[in-house]
């Protein structure tokens, strides 16, 4: 079984070199020299050593890689890094306030809203975007907002409670 000739397959990976990507990351200007076809997740993890956004599927199916571009949650695994140029990217670590957990992060800790916690990054990023545009969401609002984020441990109800708690305590 051989589907295609080597030239044909490797050709699609020939690189378009982009000299420099400039954007704001967690309030600071950053410049990164990365391959032109690099995803935002790759640049954030590989080059900018951000621990929050995580690789889960690379297919925009699970949400573990979520970050905010301006105030919108995006799947960094399928967003080209170039899409961030000139814009403001916020990662999980960027939500901290003066180095301390923000209201939503505190609520997630208070509700012990994790088992393994691998999905927590995406949950918090998406929920933060929800709270930013709707500070008093209903439980249904929260479940709808998070419906595209997968959790395998069965911690969903705790995460919902944490988001509602953050809204209440804000």
């Amino acid at each position: 079984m051989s589907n295609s000739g080597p030239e044909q397959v490797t050709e699609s990976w020939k690189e378009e070199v982009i000299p420099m990507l400039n954007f704001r990351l967690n309030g600071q200007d950053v410049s990164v020299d990365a391959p032109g076809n690099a995803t935002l997740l790759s640049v954030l993890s590989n080059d900018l050593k951000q621990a929050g956004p995580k690789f889960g599927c690379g297919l925009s199916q699970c949400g573990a890689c979520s970050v905010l571009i301006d105030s919108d949650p995006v799947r960094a695994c399928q967003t080209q890094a170039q899409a961030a140029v000139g814009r403001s990217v916020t990662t999980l670590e960027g939500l901290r306030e003066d180095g301390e957990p923000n209201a939503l992060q505190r609520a997630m800790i208070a509700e012990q809203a994790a088992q393994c916690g691998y999905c927590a990054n995406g949950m918090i990023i998406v929920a933060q975007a929800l709270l930013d545009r709707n500070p008093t969401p209903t439980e249904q609002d929260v479940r709808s907002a998070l419906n595209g984020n997968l959790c395998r441990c069965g911690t969903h109800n705790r995460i919902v409670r944490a988001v509602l708690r953050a809204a209440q305590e804000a």
Partner: protein
Amino acid sequence: MNLMIDRRTFLKGTGGFLAVSFLLPSAVFAQQAAANAGPELPGDLRNHPQLSSWLRINADGTVNLFIGKVELGQGALTAVGQVAAEELVIDFNRLVILAGDTELCPDEGTTAGSQTMPNCAPAVQQAAAEIRAILRKLAAEKLGVGEDTLTLADGTITSGGQSVTYWDLVADLQLEVDATGTAPLLPIAEHKVIGQNIPRVDIPAKMTGEAIFVQEMNPEGVLYGAIARPPTYKATLNDVDLAPIEAMPGVRQVIRNGSFLGVIAERQDQAWAAADALERTANWNVPTGLPGHDGMEEWLLTAEAEEKEWKNTVRADGTAVAETYEAQYYRPYHMHGSIGTSAAIAQKGEDGKITVWTHSQSVWATAAAIEKMLGLAEGMVHAIHTEGSGCYGHNMADDAAADACLLANAMPGTPIKLQYTRAGEHKWEPYGSAMVNKLSATLDAEGNILDWEHHIYSTPHGSRPGGNPGNLLSARYLDPPFEQPTPNDGGPPNFSATRNGLTNYELPGERVVTHFIREMPLRVSSTRGLGAYANVVAIEQFIDELAVKAGADPVEYRLRFLKDERMRDVLTRCAEAFGWDNYERQPNRGRGIAIARYKNYAAMTAVAVEVQVTRRNGLVRVLRAVTANDGGHIVSPDGMANQVEGGAIQAFSWALKEEVKFDNTQVLSTDWASYPILTFGEVPPVENVLIDRPGEPYLGNGESSQGPAGAAVANAIADAIGTRMRHGPYTPDRVLDAIRNA
């Protein structure tokens, strides 16, 4: 790399802990020696009796806790830490916990089978009690007072107006001493930490983006690896042109060894691209012959199997058989389905030793398997457990560790990080085995069970590395290949295919036979509960069917045969919390309940659910769920609730949505679209009833709710539509078929 720094700081920060354990006066030594014939030590203390293998009191006021069980997201570190803090009478925050380092921690085997609380916690508890006893003795001598005058608070021992601390007592002293098993535990009435909800130590980092998972770590100078897999398990590599791959962007090295193809590149995405190009351009010899997912039930019933009768209680009374009833149930292959794909980092040092950071559940046995795969001497692979995404059993953590080592071995000095793609994990992980359960019963005139017979058909459930390289995926493709060993079925008390195959009911006659199939059409290994899920789902559906046939209430019918008081309590409390007795029936809704005692000797869990079935499209929705649980003495109520609820929700997902799809050649479930799992909109609210049994053994709750939860859903669907779903998962198509054929 944060992790590496943390470990170094950890070792330095204790002032060189090897030199700051405690010294015992010779009189104490003599007592220790005399006590060697004392009581049997609890849990893993038996294998590692030396107190300093578990706990070290440091002069700086911290306490190191070393354990061989690891954090998988189940809260192990915190729960075991609670037990240590309690018995040492110290503030929980003094603990610095190190878990799963093959060179620093006691080897406690695999973190699996809900064994951490039953085996690790009692060991730590006794070790802490022994150290407390020793320190009290030292304090009494130092203060010149009687031991009975001493009071303890957070490591400070006081008598009258004078006091001395643990940290003073141990300064600059050194001792290695074995546990005696005689030091008394604190009276339960004095517990201040056990039974409390101590916040988990690992959670703040996970919420704030501090690197804690191996997947998040990118040490200085790291290069990235990827493996090119063949199209299917037994494919072999005919030929491949490496030159165009070597010319791809960022590629540093392409490794071919037999049918194994690996890549090292400057970026993870470049490594994946190169591996993908390798997979697609290589010429493979691809065999066919898999049964396919639709053919699997029949395959299990006809494949060559070893029969073993595990139980045969022959009915003594002569009650006349009024009727015989039988049913057959099928559980498809399930994935572990970790949200984060498996990963590892490995680095080969100048001394030829490889260090690997891995989220393996079995660091010692996996390191041993890797050593053999690479032809290295024992001790030449140092495995350090580092958290990964939840695994729920033997996923690809160990394969990732082995693959990172294979690549690191080819490029000494450079740290190599490797994380699988989603398809790489979905297609290649060892699944939970598909199973068939055939049940039959003879009934008396009132519909009571007389003779019960259960036939279990299953492929293996255990192919963990276990020190054998043939269990590491890539090792099978090397030249020469390591042969995969044929797994055995596990016997009592834990069993594997037969886990929970015996009922918890007292039946006049009960026979259980397992048909163990050694052939593995798909790769399989330990998946949360092993055979328990299929067996409990089948048993608890079958008894439900019998209750319905007898016109009896399913709770009352179970209680006719359930004699164990604790289990009766669990079932009754679950039904009460659900509102079973005053349930108001509504159209297209149904209720279901089920109970099991995990492994027939561990935690007892009952689950009740209400479902709604949309008749138009067959969609099943779990509206609400109640769990009731007796896991013995509760150390962390919140941790227990989290495990029980999480297991139930995962089982709802298995029951309603999950089946590994495959054709005659390869696995077709390659992502979350082709292997969907439960989402937020589908997860019901869950109420958890925890029954505390102070003084009873810790039973462990990692897997106890799985089977009852799946069975409760099946029973509720039957209650709603009046017909039985016996073939998982209970997808809209299947439910619609059942409604139409009813």
